[in-house]
């Protein structure tokens, strides 16, 4: 009987001591600015088009300062991105970030830093951006007339999303669930307006690596009741632009979801410009996503 007591006592003691250790251990040594500057220089030296740069979530804002404008985030990229892109990870050697496979290359840096490079794990399609979940206060603005910004939709709404100061209350961006083609669809409210344009801006994405391209898919549809209740409703035009028009979606006054896909370049934002001749009951909903695909 004493044997099981000894085992249990040992297990509990080890558990307690392990917890005590992680509770009472000292904090991490701060990363000196010159070490972080060296990390930045090494990343710039190693970086190729399409690479994702990740940094440890343990870095403080002070420690991150020497990274300057280097595009690097503390988020572990999704599996599809890791499958298609090289990942450069600025990590702490003494507290490494988890969730990655073995690096293809490890470069020691000054201080407690290390740069790990992960080769793409596959060549599938990678989702880079989803308008529905990533829209923010910089996403929508109203132009009236077309080309002149009348309002930037930055004002948080109590119901979620952003209103456009100085504009009618039905002009806003927010997630909605509308019945389109008989099915509930989550999308962003995008009511067009007479004499102007509703403009969604999609932020610039890193350029795709060689052999791959960025595909922007834009979809839109009118709510079924807006179509059925407005027999003379006007069609809605969505122009997809990036340094000029690169695609369009024309949404007729018919039930359904309409989509187009256009190839975009990295490093520049894209826009969806929405117009209509008559905005009466044009309960339009849009969605857009950017995927990195293999060039055939």
């Amino acid at each position, binding site marked *: *009987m*004493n044997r*099981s*007591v*000894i085992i*249990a*006592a040992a*297990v*509990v*003691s080890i*558990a*307690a*001591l*392990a*917890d*005590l*250790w*992680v*509770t*009472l*251990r000292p*904090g*991490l040594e701060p990363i000196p600015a010159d070490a972080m500057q060296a990390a930045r220089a090494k990343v710039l030296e190693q970086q190729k088009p399409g690479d994702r740069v990740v940094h*440890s*979530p*343990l*870095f*403080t*804002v*002070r420690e*991150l*300062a020497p*990274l*300057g*404008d280097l*595009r*690097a*985030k*503390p*988020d*572990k990229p*999704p599996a599809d991105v890791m499958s298609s892109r090289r990942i450069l990870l600025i990590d702490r050697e003494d*507290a*490494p*970030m*988890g*969730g990655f496979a073995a690096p293809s290359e490890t470069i020691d840096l000054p201080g407690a830093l290390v740069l790990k490079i992960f080769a793409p794990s596959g060549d599938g399609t990678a989702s880079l951006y989803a308008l529905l*979940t*990533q829209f*923010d*206060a910089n996403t929508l603005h109203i132009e009236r007339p077309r080309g002149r910004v009348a309002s930037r939709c*930055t*004002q*948080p709404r109590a119901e979620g999303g952003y209103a456009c100061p100085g504009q009618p209350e039905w002009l806003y961006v927010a997630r909605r669930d509308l019945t389109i083609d008989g099915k509930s669809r989550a999308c962003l409210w995008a009511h067009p307006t007479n004499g102007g344009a509703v403009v969604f801006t999609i932020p610039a994405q890193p350029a795709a690596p060689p052999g791959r391209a960025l595909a922007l898919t834009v979809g839109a549809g009118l709510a079924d009741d807006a179509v059925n209740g407005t027999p003379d409703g006007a069609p809605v035009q969505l122009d997809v632009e990036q340094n000029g028009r690169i695609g369009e979606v024309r949404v007729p006054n018919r039930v359904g979801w309409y989509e187009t896909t256009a190839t975009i370049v990295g490093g520049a934002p894209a826009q969806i410009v929405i117009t209509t001749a008559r905005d009466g009951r044009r309960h339009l909903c849009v969605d857009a996503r950017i995927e990195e695909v293999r060039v055939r």
Partner: protein
Amino acid sequence: MKRARHIAMVIVALYFVVLAAGHTSFGLTDDDDFYVPAGVSYVDWIGRALTFDREAWTRRGVDAAFNPNHEHPPVAKYVFGLCRYAFGFLGPTDASRMGTVLFSTLIAALLMWLAMRHFGRHRGLFVGGLAVLFLLTLPRFHFHSHAATLDVPVAAMYLATAALALAAERSRRAAIWCGVVFGLASATKLNAPFLVVPYLIFAFAVRRGAGRAEVRGGESGRTLPLPNVPLAAVTMATIGPLVFLASWPWLWNDTVKRVGEYVQFHLNHYGIYFLYFGRVYDKAPFAPWHAMFTMAAITVPVAITALALVGIYASKGPILYRLKHPIAPDDDDKRAGDLLLFTILNAVVSIAVVAFSGGAKYGGAKLFMPFFPFWCLLAGYGGLWLYERAEGKLRRVAVAVLALALISTAAQTIRFGPYALSQYNAVVGGLRGATTTGFERQYYDIAFRDLVDWLNVHAPKNARVHFLPNNWEYVRTYKWYRAAGDLRKDIQVVNTERSAQLVIVTHERRFLRYGSDLMRYRTKEVLEEKVIDGVPIWTVVRR
């Protein structure tokens, strides 16, 4: 017996005093702003109703009072509302939040009561005392014991119902009260009705093979066996729903429609961001079933879990004895077997309900608060087993091991204090390891008091402050600090980042914009930074 009872009361009183003493150091969560005003509205209505204000009893009066936060049932909010008046000297939110301290203390009392009733006075005191001390030092439960939310209250009401259901095995009066308390528990939060699952399994298991009622046929002499339905099950099914409806005036009008809305709200609960192994879950399909078990495994101090596992191992004998002897005399062995079996069933079900429900999973350990009292009770029993089985000099070793277990859990609670929702155990490498593995370093949008203190001292006159990435939650909580005089009157939390002088980054990775926010502010002047275990929690930067 009297002395044991006095000691038990002292332990429970100590539990209350420790919670109450630290109460005002815990920051407001994003839920307090929902439940505190709702509680005040409900209690004001009760005051009007009891003084026969005719308007109070009209549909308009009832709906106006109970519309705030009507998606959740009211019992905990009644207590928050009452505490607002009883502890008014603490300020508007801390007074209401004392209600949760009371619920938490009720758990401590119930643990002592259950242990002493089922293990005898000395052994029960040992088990109950350890369980209460573990619960007191369980960092995340300790935090939740201060928030005006429904999670600790439902844990208390769930345990109260479980205790009465168990007592109902030996008392008709307890069976009647079980129905009443079950109704009140169901009117606290949706976790409570799931108690029926472990209870029915328990009732079936302990009655299996026991004598059952039967109806003898007339001339044929044939018998019709009747199921041996426990009285508590009957009262839970009959009195329970009546109490549930009676205690929630919102359901008095449009009853069917509103009950339907209540159920639908929880069946289709909106997604809440949850970072799990580096991936953010915010909509269906929600985080996988193992997320809740993982959260328990990496947040409950390992010593408690080790002792609880010892307790489960040690329960084997009493439970098997109980199951093999359904009609044995009601001695200590039978009572111990009852409690241990019921405790294990409830510990499993209270967490499995969340894990397998298919609903939204979020908020660290918040959703399965009813699990913790049962787990601590098992840890207490594990401690007793260790102590009793150790012979000779080993007994001193056993005492030392239990002391070490308590010290290690208490150390975590003291170390993290108001930052208890950032605590992780050694399994995942502490907070630092959890952050690098892809778990959230904090949740609940806590408006930390030390940040408020810092702002009071260092923010410029008429400072405009903006939080990133989720400012809207702090707009709601900081208004309470201003109202209570905890925050300087001239400091404003502003809606737009552009108009702010100070930006506070709260380092919550579950928000997709966090990485971009961090990138934009990394070169700005840092005025103050809260770092725990090498992990930044919040940073104040000059815009």
